[in-house]
């Protein structure tokens, strides 16, 4: 038992942070929100070179994965820097394709995800994130979870490559562009294999969303700590007030207890651990967002100030790929207690 990131894993996180700090992500995010993907695509190439997407793709399809721990480590940094784009969706699509019994779709589509030629998005009935930026647009219909088997519905499950999307709907997080996918499109796979593969993909989606949310929360805390140290009222920094300190201490506690859940879930990859990580990291990030807004005051409530880029993302990630309610239900399971003791 050595439950700490290795030297290599820490070095990987540090190299991503260095890359992302140099990339001026706030301006990339703002451009992305307006539909200008130039900066975002350049950043996507750098992340691909760093191997982020290859971590989700098995070696048989030119990837280095699946390596959930490294993916979690990477997604914490992506969240910390508010990187835009279908990040979670691309690794989810990769997992989904690789998990099909039929290797055809994976052989055809995965190498382009590893090389960065393609980004992917996945929709399960609702909206597809950033579908205009994704070349691989997957739509899954039918049951999503193998946890509730229903033979008739399972055999009706379909995975299709969707046609080009129409116009996006605005999202609470302007950097997350939500597209309804048009019906039809090429059928890639059907039947129970789609249901089973989607269950695997959902685990990766929830894990990376949790990691991303943790990074968002950590960034919100760091920025707020820096702000309350320099902002003065009544002649002293507001960070010297106990009421301010205690809110930030609570944010720190929530995030520091989410971190081991995220890393632990990446190690065990059980549905219960992943759901626990998702609900905890997202709730911690969201609570930190509320605290960050309160302690920044009016400046935090403006779109012009960069804090908003993390604030809105914390809210959006909370429901992405499984609401707190769904995740708590997954922790409770269907009568079995989690195997934690």
């Amino acid at each position, binding site marked *: 038992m050595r439950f700490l990131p290795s030297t290599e894993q820490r070095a990987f996180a540090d190299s991503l942070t260095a890359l992302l700090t140099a990339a001026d992500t706030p301006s990339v995010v703002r451009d992305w929100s307006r539909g200008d993907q130039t900066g975002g695509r350049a950043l996507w190439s750098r992340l691909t070179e760093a191997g982020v997407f290859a971590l989700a793709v098995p070696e048989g399809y030119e990837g280095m994965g699946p390596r959930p721990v490294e993916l979690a480590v990477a997604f914490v940094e992506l969240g910390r820097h508010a990187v835009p784009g279908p990040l979670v969706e691309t690794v989810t699509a990769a997992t989904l394709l690789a998990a099909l019994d039929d290797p055809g779709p994976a052989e055809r589509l995965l190498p382009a995800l590893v090389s960065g030629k393609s980004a992917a998005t996945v929709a399960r009935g609702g909206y597809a994130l950033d579908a205009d930026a994704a070349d691989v647009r997957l739509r899954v219909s039918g049951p999503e979870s193998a946890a509730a088997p229903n033979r008739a519905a399972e055999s009706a499950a379909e995975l299709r490559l969707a046609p080009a999307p129409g116009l996006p709907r605005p999202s609470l997080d302007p950097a997350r562009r939500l597209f309804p996918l048009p019906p039809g499109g090429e059928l890639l796979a059907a039947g129970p294999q789609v249901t089973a593969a989607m269950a695997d993909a959902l685990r990766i989606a929830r894990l990376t969303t949790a990691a991303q949310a943790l990074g968002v929360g950590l960034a919100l805390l760091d920025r707020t700590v820096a702000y309350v140290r320099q902002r003065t009222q009544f002649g002293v920094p507001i960070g010297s007030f106990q009421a301010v300190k205690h809110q930030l201490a609570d944010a720190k506690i929530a995030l520091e*207890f989410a*971190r081991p859940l995220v890393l632990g879930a990446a190690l065990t990859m059980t549905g219960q651990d992943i759901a626990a990580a998702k609900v*905890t990291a997202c709730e911690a990030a969201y609570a930190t967002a509320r605290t960050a807004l309160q302690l920044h005051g009016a400046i935090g409530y403006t779109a012009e100030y960069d804090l908003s880029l993390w604030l809105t993302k914390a809210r959006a990630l909370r429901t992405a790929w499984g609401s707190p309610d769904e995740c708590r239900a997954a922790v409770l399971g269907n009568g079995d*207690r989690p195997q934690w003791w």
Partner: protein
Amino acid sequence: MDLAFTQEEEAFRAEARTWLNAHVPSTPLPSLETEEGFAAHRAWEAELAADRWSVVDWPAVYGGRDAGLVRWLLFEEEYYAAGAPGRVGQNGVSLLAPTLFDHGTEDQRARVLPPMATGEVVWAQAWSEPEAGSDLASLRSRAVRTAGGWLLSGQKTWSSRAAFADRAFGLFRSDPQPAKPHQGLTYVMFDLRAPGVTVRPIRRLDGRPAFAELFLDEVFVPDEDVIGEPGQGWRVAMSTAGNERGLTLRSPGRFLAGAGRLCALWRAQGSPDAVRHRVADALIGARAYQLFTYAAASRHLDGAVLGPESSLNKVFWSEYDIALTETALDILDAADEPADTEWAERYVFALAGPIYAGTNEIQRDIIAERLLGLPKGRR
């Protein structure tokens, strides 16, 4: 990075489980905050000690198994999963013993630790005083030099377990006019039945004498019962406070077992929807605390000194414990039955968590100032 245990660690876990299954009393012992319960828990400590399960992480020479931190965590998981009794010796084992390992003499360890391990001598803590809660530096009880030792005078309060315990440890002011309030304190061990000691039990919310007030009138303490250098008691005590808040006071095993029992209670009452989220959160919180502790233990084994981060643990487990036991009481009330005495007692015990071992307000100040780097201010 891994969560796997070695074959030896798993074998240790299995041995502990086997022993506990064979020895844990089939009916719960009476509350350890009663005279009868205190005696029953003392006897349980002796039973544990007879097979060297009472202090598994201690060196064998004092009655332990040299088990180390990881095995101690595994033992605790098994201990609480087996539904074994609460530990009457906890004050001594988790607070005084680490201090003796770090600052005590060989003679002190040889005299104090073995009877602590068997429950023959049960220790109470004597930190708090009237007018001095979490502000330990304002202590006023005195230690005055005398031939061969010190004379203790003054008043201590909120002394956990002191109603029935044998001995106590705490800080006394040996220099009445130090340059700074943290200086001139001396860390001593004394006998609760020595001449000059009056113990007045204090009843907590449920009427049980879980703590006591101590009145000390020139109580003699020999030099050999001073821990560390006279006047250096603050420094000695601070190394213990980290233990109290951090790894050893509340092991994850306690909360994992508690969450499991809560879940079983919830299902037995028909899985009511009203508390579904809270039951899920109890399970999640227990897992989070377990993994957080594994990470802290890993850092410790890598040689890191666990400092202010123990304040994160303390706030987390103390608030978690209340949420857990409150949920159980709500389920029992909703089932239109009287609150089960075991959960009610746990709840009353949990309510004190945010108050003792340094209030949670103090812990949040430590987190803000020492982990987040915020400026000191008026409290």
